[in-house]
């Protein structure tokens, strides 16, 4: 688990307020991350535009009105090639069906909901460690789906 000194910054985007708050609390309390949560993906994108290098991880729901997770990821990726983008969904996703979309958007990972907060913290921590390693070994390398 990362110490608060490292304070990795995470952006959480989920149109369900309860879920966004739950994830924020879990990542902050159990993972020691510094989390900004958004329920409106449009606001999240505007915030990201003004803070392009603030976040190490963006964790977003897939199906949201206003801007869907794929579009949000595309826009964020245009602004920052290095940020780790993870999508999540409560829908049973056939990853084969979405593989090309995920590749085109350079999504780093997909999390199937429901996920326990304990497991989510472990997953995010793993992605942080892994992406730190990637950037030190090869700044252009990216995890494949």
């Amino acid at each position, binding site marked *: 688990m990362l110490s608060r000194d490292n304070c990795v910054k995470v952006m959480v985007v989920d*149109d369900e307020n309860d879920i966004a708050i739950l994830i924020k609390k879990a990542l902050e309390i159990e993972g020691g991350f510094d989390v900004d949560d958004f329920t409106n993906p449009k606001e999240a994108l505007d915030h990201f535009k003004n803070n392009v290098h603030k976040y190490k991880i963006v964790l977003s729901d*897939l*199906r*949201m*009105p*206003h801007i*869907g*997770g*794929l*579009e949000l990821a595309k826009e964020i990726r245009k602004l920052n090639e290095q940020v780790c983008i993870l999508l999540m969904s*409560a*829908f049973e996703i*056939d990853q084969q*069906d*979405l593989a090309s*979309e995920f590749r085109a958007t350079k999504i780093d990972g997909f999390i199937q909901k429901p996920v326990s907060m304990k497991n989510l913290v472990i997953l995010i921590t793993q992605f942080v460690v892994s992406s730190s390693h990637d950037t030190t070994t090869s700044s252009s390398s990216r995890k494949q789906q």
Partner: protein
Amino acid sequence: LNIINNEIQQQQQSASSFTANRGRPVSGDSQMILQQLQDTKHGEHNILIYPDLDTLNEVMATHYKEALEDRNELALFVTHYQTIPYVRKKLLERGELDIAKYEQEGSLVLYDSVKGYQTSSQGVYSIMALINMLIERVKKLGKSGMFGMADMGSFFLFQRIEQLLSYELSLPSIWDNMKLRSFCMYHEGDFSRMTEQERQALIDHHYKYIKMH
């Protein structure tokens, strides 16, 4: 002779009411929209804009109960932003529907929009294939007709607005010879992302335009 005349008169009234109501925009709160749903007739292919999922669920649960229990219709719900188990929960909580019974007998069908419109081998017309199959089931089950609501959100997720327009505009405004009344649903946040021209084309093409506040 009077009976025949009455029948002809009813048919003429029905045909003229279709023409009179065509493209009539309706907007209002959930109670007013519920009334609009209750007033829809078989043949109508309508468009419904909803502001948020809570408001939609309130109307949806009440009207699905009416469709299944009072109208004896087969009901289809194509969901995008809410999972199928969540829709079941809402129908149970708000509509107090015997979901298990209706799903088991095949008169309530809940379907995922991504599978229905985006990832099926039949493409966007997979839902129409499902509807045609369900219309056959209407006859077998002795139902009075079919009621369906389908969220178009998946087209926005995949950013396929052109396909959405081409699909919507390829469907008729009135389902001829089909005992089907249907609503294409759009979340306000999605609908507002289209251009004015695109929105108007969709509004004009549907039989009735209903906007929920």
